[in-house]
């Protein structure tokens, strides 16, 4: 009986944990969007772990380390001073108690070099790891949304 109760408690704890991960990471994505829209490089970079890797395919950028990430965002905000991102949807797949992948669909708007407003659909995946009880982005990968698949 004691074992059964312990198992039930463990199951309940693990279910609650999974639920927490999803809501915590989704909140992180919203925090990331707010920091990005405020062009606050320090707040953006604070959401990553100490040795992050990033792949921003739509800008041909790939790098690792907090300094490189900080440099990338500083340059991006200088080049596109009106860039704004809108989170459209976000899924979280928890792959283990301390790792998860967030998958987001975003709309980015900014003014192009010719002065015209550009709207781009961007898909992202963020691999999260739990560091001292907090979810941090280990790898950030973003790319353009491909054209829709033709219907059968």
């Amino acid at each position, binding site marked *: 009986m004691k074992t059964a109760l312990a198992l039930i408690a463990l199951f309940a704890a693990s279910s609650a944990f999974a639920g927490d991960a999803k809501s915590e990471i989704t909140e992180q994505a919203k925090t990331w969007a707010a920091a990005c829209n405020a062009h606050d490089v320090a707040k953006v970079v604070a959401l990553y772990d100490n040795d992050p890797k990033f792949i921003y395919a739509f800008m041909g950028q790939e790098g690792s380390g907090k300094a490189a990430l900080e440099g990338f965002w500083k340059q991006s905000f200088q080049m596109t001073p009106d860039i704004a991102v809108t989170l459209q949807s976000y899924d979280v*797949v928890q*792959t283990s108690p301390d790792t998860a992948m967030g998958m987001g669909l975003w709309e980015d708007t900014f003014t192009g070099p010719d002065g015209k407003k550009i709207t781009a659909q961007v898909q992202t995946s963020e691999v999260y790891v739990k560091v001292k009880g907090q979810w941090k982005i280990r790898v950030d990968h973003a790319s*353009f949304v491909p054209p829709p*698949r033709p219907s059968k």
Partner: protein
Amino acid sequence: MKYALVALALLALAPAARADAQAEAQKVNDAFIAAVNVKDPQKSVAAVLALFTEDAQHIGVFGRVHGKKELQQILPKAFADPARQGTLRAVEGLQLDPNTILAISHFDNAVSGPDGKPMSLPLRCTRVLSKQKDGRWLISAEHTSFGPPPPPPPAPAKK
């Protein structure tokens, strides 16, 4: 003293874990490319699907795909291309925890271009590999995108 020995043992195991992550990431990506390069499209799709978990998530060149069943519906069309040929360029494996490895790979994917001639597309992929009960590592989530790998870092200046 006991704690010091445990700490030493853990330190000794850390590089081994990293080496395993690299080896396993390489193994899964080699298997992926080998599967892509199987000439028979049906066998090729089956070999690729065998590398994914049932609930694997894909984001990237096929848009957003939820689960192996959805992937199974999409792959046959892409794999019907006779020019299909994958070449693995680089793999990096990172151990996230004992049951999770992150693999970052660069590979070229040859496909038939609009003019019918083969063209090569540089792709990069981040994959979450999850350890199964039988010890195999399968892809549980991945993101693939177009784009060449970054240039290699400059060689250190000679003194």
